[in-house]
């Protein structure tokens, strides 16, 4: 099986965001993360393409992303004061969408910084 090698991969585990990691991956998992620190290695090597988790859960019941998205939209839209919180372990692109959603919802957008 051929390995994908990503040079200059970025480790998004801690605030150092080191971007000189050489990641070796097969189809299924990351097998090496050169130059990563002990925390970074653990993080890179801890993920696989396996489906460990259901696509989505609604009230504990497994369901499709489509349905979960609809339910989420209903719940959030119905609220008078919804909260969009977290945004640490997501990309800036996702953060941008999250802020736009909070704005559309008329809610609060907040991150770990407020802790």
């Amino acid at each position, binding site marked *: 099986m051929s390995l994908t090698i990503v040079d200059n991969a970025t480790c998004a585990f801690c605030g150092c965001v080191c971007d000189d990691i050489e990641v070796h991956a097969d189809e299924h998992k990351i097998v090496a993360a050169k130059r990563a620190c002990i925390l970074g290695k653990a993080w890179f090597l801890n993920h696989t393409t396996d489906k460990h988790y259901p696509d989505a859960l609604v009230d504990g019941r497994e369901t499709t992303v489509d349905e979960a998205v609809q339910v989420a939209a209903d719940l959030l839209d119905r609220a008078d004061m919804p909260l969009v919180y977290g945004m640490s372990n997501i990309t800036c692109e996702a953060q941008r969408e999250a802020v736009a959603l909070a704005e*559309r919802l008329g809610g609060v957008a907040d991150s770990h910084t407020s802790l």
Partner: protein
Amino acid sequence: MLRIVGGQVYDPAHGIDGVVQDVCIQDGRIVENVDAAPTIDASGMIVFPGGVDVHTHVAGGSINFARAMTPEDHRRTTAFIRSQTNRAGVGGMTPTTFATGYLYAGMGWTTVNEAAVPILSAKHTHEELRDIPIVDKSCCVLLANNEILLDLLEAGEMERAREVVAWQIWASKAYGVKAVNPGGVAAWKYGKNAEQLSEPVDGYHKVTPAKIVAGLAQIVDDLGLPHPLHLHCNNLGVPGNLTTTLETMQNLDGRRAHMAHLQYHAYGGDDWSTMRSEAPQLADYMNAHRNFTTDAGAVLFGDTVTITADGPWQHLLYKLTGRKWGNLDVENETGCGIVPYTYRPTNLVNAVQWAVGLELLLLIDDPWRVFLTTDHPNGACFWRYPEIIQLLMCRDFRRDCMAGQSDKALSRIHLPDIDREYTLYEIATITSAGPARALGLPRKGHLGVGADADVVIYDQDDDVARMFGHPRYVIKGGEIVIEDGDIRATPEGRGLLVRPPHDEQIEAFLRPLFEDYYTMSFDNYSVEMERIQQPEICDCIDTE
């Protein structure tokens, strides 16, 4: 398709001075004629090409740093409330990205040039530019304190320096090259400055500010960048700095340059108490040397926040004012300082600054070479441009504004003796046609066939500030975006770039240096093309 009929058209690029004629639009461009198009009846109205801002600070690490520093200002400004058309935001001294687009378009400006981008955080700048709706955007990359370049200049390797600059422009997806306080920011990294043009920069033996300026200007010309070197001189804001400014211009020896915010560089006197306007001297020099363009960097009284890559100046300002201070040095490249500031008519220095900006605009006789800016947000916020237009067009209004100033202040300025009043034609030149030409954007700043259909239509109004503050219609790329103060549409603007050719081998030279000097991987340094919204790569030109 759109036809604007019956308006008085001001199109200085074609010598059209208030002639009533139709303007036709198709597919986002001005065309000769359109059939059966919707019509705007502009009878009794004034038609201008969309405004072009040659020098502003609206996106990137510095302005975003300033946003976090000034929540009190966000609170006191009128907010943008989300609608089906527009995003929420706040205006004020450092408007949010969405608000920036709405505010610019709201007064008829359709192209802006972000004047200060470090390569290292250029991705960030472009992320923000993407979120500034409606207007088209270009940006200038900061190179006059780039240590890799300074090293090359020290070694006299001009050709390699040129290749590096070409690479850096494309890496940062910039449109032009900006020099800020050449050598001074590099020295600031150790708390020092570069005050003498011909003395070596701290840490170097041969490189002087003068050499950096001349070298970069030469490189920009050699590369054929459509916009000349965008130059923020040494000793910004310092009494007596006229000498430095004139020396810098002489040192350019006929090369092209755009002298940014000259207002901050036209002072006489020895210290703050003797500071005076030397605008006439500088204007004379500008009038006699056609290789330069400039923008005013005009000051208006009131609150603002000063943001500049000129770190040493900002530390001085912090010490002078005792206000908040932000500083962000960028490895090997540049820095940035942020200090909130209030310009007061009762403050002698501020009164002189206010006059100098207007004096330059009034004394430089060719409106094609001096443009309206406030160096937003440094001199004032860009959304106050209509106030400056009023000051330029109405001598009596200027006199009224000076009525309250002290004799001491009046003795330091020349404005009371200047009678010139701008015409609408000249206003169209300094706000649109001129800056478009200086930026080298052939489809901007005019209403000729083939131009981008960026058009602004004003109701005629004796109150000049009101007229320019509230256009009747603003059309961007053929689409009505503002009508009677309402935001009608918020299309994405384009990203304007240049791609000067460079030797691919230069990466092999840069890579090891980069690994020594920087903390980011070389391969992650360049801005990916996908980050540029609606990119448009503009042609380089023959500057011979």
